[in-house]
């Protein structure tokens, strides 16, 4: 467990530093200004992974992480103003760029499977994604406008 925590922490820090530099180049936020927010996010992840290990039920670690994030930033939570102000300095898109850079290197191994898919599969798979996206958007539109939210 301790060895795992060390491994997670080191990887989160490497990922965090890469994101902070991307956050600087792409969104003009100085790494030192965004560092407290990144530290909060790293600690939330670490807490989520540890809870996932300690609690013996089938519940994904990413769900713990999201829930902890919500709890510490709720308006009713003391100190949430700081959490929100710090993490605001870490742009969402600065986190997604390194994710997809790692993903690109990882999916290289699926590329040969990908090129073997026929054109009919490509057409149907595209419609699968468009179908769920438009379907969900239409239902949301209907209900949000019925409620008068949009």
């Amino acid at each position, binding site marked *: 467990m301790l060895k795992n925590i060390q491994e997670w922490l080191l990887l989160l820090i490497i990922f965090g530093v890469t994101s902070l530099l991307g956050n600087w180049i792409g969104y003009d936020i100085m790494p030192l200004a965004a560092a407290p927010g990144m530290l909060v996010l790293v600690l939330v992840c670490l807490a989520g992974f540890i809870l996932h290990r300690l609690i013996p039920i089938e519940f994904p670690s990413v769900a713990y992480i*999201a829930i902890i994030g919500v709890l510490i930033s709720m308006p009713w939570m003391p100190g949430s103003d700081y959490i929100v102000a710090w993490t605001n300095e870490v742009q969402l898109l600065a986190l997604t760029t390194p994710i997809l850079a790692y993903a690109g290197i990882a999916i290289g191994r699926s590329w040969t499977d990908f090129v073997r898919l026929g054109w009919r599969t490509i057409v149907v798979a595209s419609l699968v994604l468009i179908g769920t996206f438009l379907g969900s958007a239409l239902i949301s539109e209907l209900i949000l406008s019925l409620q008068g939210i949009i």
Partner: protein
Amino acid sequence: MSSGMGSGLWKDWRLHALVLITVLATEAIGTYSFTIGPGVVLLLPMLYALIIGLILYFTPIVKERQSKNAEPIIVLGVALLLAKIGVIIGPSLPQLIEAGPALLLQELGNLGTILLALPVAVWLGLKRETIGMTHSVAREPNVGLIMDKYGISSAEGQGVMAVYIFGTVFGAVFMGLISGFLATVTPLHPLSFAMASGIGSGSMMAAASGSLIEAFPDLENQIVAFAGASNLLSLSTGLYISIFIGLPLTEKLYGVMTRNKKG
């Protein structure tokens, strides 16, 4: 997350250095957009990063080991992304609760996949692989469901794997391109598309909502909160919707369509 994660991944400096260089280069290039008719297509740094990563894989700089090591690190990156989404959802919690009914019901929008893709698959002459392909968006839980019910080497299993591979390789790029375009070309509200972005895959959600943020920067926090909450709901309810509604509906519609074809 714990399973399959070897120790010493942090020592793969070649991998981390390549990612860092890719990130700095793509962020320096920044976002480009172009218009097709009334719609806007956004090219975000994350999309270049995916493509550069893929190209790197085919150069001698990246060895098989880097590619294997990269996989569990994606999970860590998605964990950080979800922590960030969590702290955006927190302050917007009152609004999200207000939008609760829409959030819950739009999960049924996944069935749009069946209505749109199944007839085309049958029309293109695909057989029972249609059922695996079109019953859902074919992320990990759905692949498990089909494998469990029909077997790995069945036509249905091959169908779900084909869409899964397409989604893995091309899903984020595809969602990033269509979400900005559809949100600018259709009269639907960006927040409806934000909810639709949460289809149960971290990278597809990031790409889809990322394009929405670039197209509608004023709504950034609301877009992220709605997309993130919807993605969490998809992760937790998606499988049940497939089991109880999606898959039976697919079977039924496939039966009806192929019968009509023969008769």
